[in-house]
């Protein structure tokens, strides 16, 4: 079965640079969630989209922005990167909103900021 695809899998950036993380949900999934997991930490919710509209927002820095496109893939744009942004970034997808559907996680993008 198709899974959530995230690209790139690994990314190394310098401080103050920008980064773009991409997420391709499972086919027919219209809802995407982004989570950030720092070293030794639990995943923290950043932002979510349902049918291309932002559905919820968590502790996402103003330096970050995200959107969901017409084909339901999503991109997380991160600017003015800081050392503390080094983390594993997960994308998860599900079908619909307001249902008891499982969030399927992608393999994550490991971002390292030097």
């Amino acid at each position, binding site marked *: 079965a198709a899974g959530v695809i995230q690209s790139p899998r690994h990314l190394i950036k310098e401080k103050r640079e920008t980064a773009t993380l991409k997420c391709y949900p499972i086919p027919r999934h219209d*809802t995407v*969630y982004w*989570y950030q*997991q720092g070293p030794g*930490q*639990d*995943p*923290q*919710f950043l932002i*979510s989209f349902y049918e291309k509209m932002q*559905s*919820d927002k*968590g502790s996402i820095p103003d330096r970050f922005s995200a959107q969901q496109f017409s084909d339901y893939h999503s991109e997380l744009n991160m600017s003015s990167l800081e050392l503390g942004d080094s983390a*594993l970034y*997960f994308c*998860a997808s599900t079908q619909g*909103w*307001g*249902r*008891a559907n*499982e*969030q399927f*996680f992608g*393999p*994550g993008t*490991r971002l390292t900021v030097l």
Partner: protein
Amino acid sequence: AQTVTQSQPEMSVQEAETVTLSCTYDTSESDYYLFWYKQPPSRQMILVIRQEAYKQQNATENRFSVNFQKAAKSFSLKISDSQLGDAAMYFCAYRSAVRYQGGSEKLVFGKGMKLTVNP
């Protein structure tokens, strides 16, 4: 806001034995979902088991079962016949049942617990 607490940062178990991972949560909502996720060294998040709060019956998935105590806001995971492949970080997570009461569909995770399985 909802919170999830896993008070044991690490546990170990002998292969083939049983281990119980504890989790408590705090919420004012009446309907919600609880999950246990496994994160092996590959860092992939894998759903182990799910419990819907309105269901009194405890969920079971093969060797994995939960003890859901809604009044006590407790949600423990029991792993029977532990296998080497069970070694991982285990996260307890909470999610609102948005359809019935609004709110967020985000997952709120506990701090996780590292399970070691000894041969």
